[in-house]
């Protein structure tokens, strides 16, 4: 990288940021040039989010500098970032659902009076620029996620922007919406703005980016410059990025690496499945849920899962996945309909009885629901069997029996913990997920509900989790896989059901190419079709 600073460049130099126990950014340097899309690629925990929050003024680096057009700047607050023309679109929506689009966009206005007329003009300018149509008076909550994201982009560019940062913008979108996004990014780029696109999917980096920087373990481990990337063939670019992303692990993972990094379109990895020859394990007949909270409930759900089958449930986050998994696990009551397990009606059966029957649940909230951070790994491994023999006798805990079981599972599932007595909360996310899997997949498990099983995990653990689920199904276990990651669903599932606003809106048999598009269509039809 050059030390001269031409105009239109935002330069990060030697950025280091440490949190207790982890160095999130370690001497990271990179240049973001106007009129280019700079892709920041790396797996979960590689330090992408920290780098963005430094650009956004939400964190300050321990050392290192940021300069814009050659002038050192100190981005000490989000407001300063806006003043410097840095607009950030975060992964999760920051819009106020009860406000209209225009009201959301005007939240950052500093004047005393609201100038609606000027705001509408500005929105029109931006909508033109992005090539989208945005109704200024629509309630944000009524918009589809793709449209919400366009509003977020408009918001980030509201005060005139030099650098637009998009944090994992595709993670919540259907394939169709991703195309729209790509078009908008092209247009923004053509206006001479710099775009920083953060992603963990290699093919997006290749398709949308002009240059790529790869982070691993907080370090900048590779940069492919504009001319390099354009001179590479797709395969060469892939190899270069994979080598940087995985380092020595590349050899271990082999072919799986490119899939994990989302290099190509996902394909199914499980064996073909003859639906008719297998008995039905779980069947839901017109089930609706009822809970106390503000969660989306499910309505009139009917489906069945066969022995050895992995049934995927696709959908955008928060469309009833939580309710559905809790319903099957027994944590939420069914207000109507019937749940059958191996032909037996379990609609009124509680969590523990279902547990004993072999119904298991790997929750997506692994930190606060799936484990108890303050308790030991060993206790967490047996916590669903409180009071049962051989771990408890006459109400008293038997530390020896618990210890033996813990050692066994820690060994079998390769849980990296200093000792069985270590508090579960001190382990990494990947190891906590292994605790959950070890507990749920063993001791007579017949059906396991997994909700977002690989969310936020590092790629090696992602790989392990997926292998475990595939093995479990191969041995006759049934899996109900709820995920927002379309690639994951396509890799693992025999069949994919699409959930939207608490209802199943379509079913796709996963037997060859085109599954993603079909699923996407169902999702789009159900969500954006209403507008």
């Amino acid at each position, binding site marked *: 990288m050059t030390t001269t600073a031409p105009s239109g460049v935002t330069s990060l130099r030697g950025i280091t940021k440490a*949190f207790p126990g*982890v160095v*999130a*950014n370690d001497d990271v340097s990179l240049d973001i040039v106007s009129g280019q899309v700079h892709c920041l690629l790396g797996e979960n*925990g*590689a*330090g*992408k*989010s*920290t780098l963005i*929050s430094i650009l956004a003024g*939400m*964190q300050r680096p321990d050392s290192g500098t940021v300069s814009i057009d050659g002038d050192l700047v100190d981005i000490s607050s989000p407001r300063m970032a806006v003043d410097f023309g840095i607009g950030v679109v975060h992964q999760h929506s920051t819009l106020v659902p009860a406000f209209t689009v225009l009201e959301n966009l005007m939240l950052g206005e500093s004047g005393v009076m609201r100038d609606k007329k000027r705001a509408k003009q500005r929105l029109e300018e931006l909508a033109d620029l992005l090539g989208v149509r945005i109704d200024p008076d629509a309630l944000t909550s009524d918009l589809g996620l793709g449209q919400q994201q366009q509003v977020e982009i408009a918001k980030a560019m509201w005060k005139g922007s030099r650098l637009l940062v998009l944090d994992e913008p595709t993670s919540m979108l259907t394939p169709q919406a991703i195309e729209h996004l790509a078009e908008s990014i092209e247009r923004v780029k053509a206006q001479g703005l710099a775009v920083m696109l953060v992603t963990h999917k290699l093919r997006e980096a290749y398709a949308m980016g002009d240059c790529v920087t790869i982070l691993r373990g*907080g370090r900048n481990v590779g940069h492919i410059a504009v001319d390099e990337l354009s001179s590479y063939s797709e395969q060469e670019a892939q190899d270069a990025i994979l080598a940087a992303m995985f380092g020595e692990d590349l050899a271990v993972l082999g072919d799986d690496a490119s899939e994990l990094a989302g290099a190509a379109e996902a394909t199914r990895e499980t064996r073909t499945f003859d639906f008719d020859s297998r008995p039905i394990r779980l069947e839901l007949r017109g089930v609706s849920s009822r809970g*106390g909270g503000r969660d989306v409930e499910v309505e009139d759900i009917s489906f069945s899962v066969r022995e050895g089958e992995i049934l995927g449930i696709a959908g955008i986050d928060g469309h009833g996945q939580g309710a559905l998994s809790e319903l099957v*696990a*027994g*944590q939420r009551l069914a207000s109507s309909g019937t749940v059958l397990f191996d032909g037996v009606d379990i609609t009124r059966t*509680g*969590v*523990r009885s279902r*547990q004993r029957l072999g119904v298991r*649940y790997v*929750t997506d*909230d692994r930190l*606060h*629901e*799936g*484990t*108890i*951070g*303050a*308790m030991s790994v060993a*206790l967490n491994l047996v*916590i*669903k069997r*409180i*009071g049962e023999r051989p771990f*408890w006798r006459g*109400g*008293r*805990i038997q530390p020896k029996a618990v210890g033996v079981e813990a050692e066994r599972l820690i060994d079998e599932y390769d849980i990296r913990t200093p*000792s069985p*007595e270590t508090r579960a*909360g001190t382990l990494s996310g990947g190891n906590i997920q292994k605790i959950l899997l070890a507990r749920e997949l063993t001791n007579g498990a017949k059906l396991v509900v997994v909700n977002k099983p690989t969310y936020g995990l590092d790629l090696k653990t992602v790989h392990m989790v997926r292998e475990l689920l595939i093995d479990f199904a191969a041995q006759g276990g049934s899996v109900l896989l709820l995920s927002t990651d379309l690639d994951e669903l396509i890799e693992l599932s025999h069949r994919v059901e699409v959930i939207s606003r608490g209802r199943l809106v379509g079913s796709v048999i996963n037997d060859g190419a085109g599954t993603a598009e079909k699923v996407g269509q169902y999702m789009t039809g159900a969500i954006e079709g209403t507008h």
Partner: protein
Amino acid sequence: MNAETNAARRFLQGFVRSIVPVLLALIVASLIMLAIGSSPTEFLAGVLKYGITGSNWQRSLALMSPLLIVAVGLIVAFRGQLWNLGYNGQYLLGAVVASGLGPILFGKMPAALATIIIFIVAVLAGAVWSLVPAILKARYGTNEIITSLVMSSIAVGVVNLLIKGIFKDPKVTTPQTPVVSDSNLLPFIPGTQIHIGFVIAILLAVVAQFVLTRTSFGLRVDVFGASPKAARHVGLNSTWMVILLFAISSGLIAFAGSIDILGQFSYQRADWSPRYGDSVMPLVFLARFRPVAAIPFVAFYAVLATGGTLAAQQAGLNVDFLLVIVGLILLFMTITEYIGDRRRLGQSYLPQGLRRSLRLPLRNKSEGTAA
């Protein structure tokens, strides 16, 4: 071996963190005494003299009885992260059962039977009173701190009405209940002036300690306390858990009230309230919700309270100065907690889940975005 040294170190750190706030509170209280012209040495010497020497230690131990039972009651609820702050009302309810029913029952049946009936009714009264905040909490998620406090105020009113009404001793003009005769009060431990309530309290603490740390029920309480979500995930019935823990907690505190009347006071006046819970609450935090660990803290406070009342008068202080010391303990506990947490020393007073929720508003918003 490593685990053992670790455990020893943890114990030591926990010990230090428990003692430091008490010492700091005593030091600052001394400074305050100096500032208002009283002699701290005279006060502290007075506390020792009237709290321990001679046969005064027996009075302190007798006071420990209700304090310790209240402490165990609070611990049961607090471990499940149910903040039962209705202890004053619950205590008085238990007390009025004893002072009201006592004079009626003791004339009609053997003292032992009457005593047992009184205890049972007292525990039930406390438990039933707690149903309101418990059900509201379990069913609608209402904040139990507010509802239990409100129920406590109502209980205080009801108790006063009872003492001024049907339980009033017609022979005296002041609104108070008839005195239970000495022969019907709880027996003393042989050779002392300490009623057997002390033994009952110690036994209760030991049993509670065992149940809470060694049994499946204790683990369920801890799971529930750590995270209601996790409790549901594990298959616990949260509604039942809230009601049960509230009932045990409130029942125990009411039991303390009845034992205090039958062991110590023998009658009850209207508008009387020893407010034990207010003083005990910081102590159970210092004991980290461990019943047995609460014993020394309660003993310390019992001496302070027994000796302090006379000592304060001698040093020219108001009796309320004792509450100043308790308040200071609470204050320094919070500070020690904060500093200790920052430096990652020892153990916390609070379970993890609560610590998070307490600190969250104070935290810099950006801290949450670590990679």
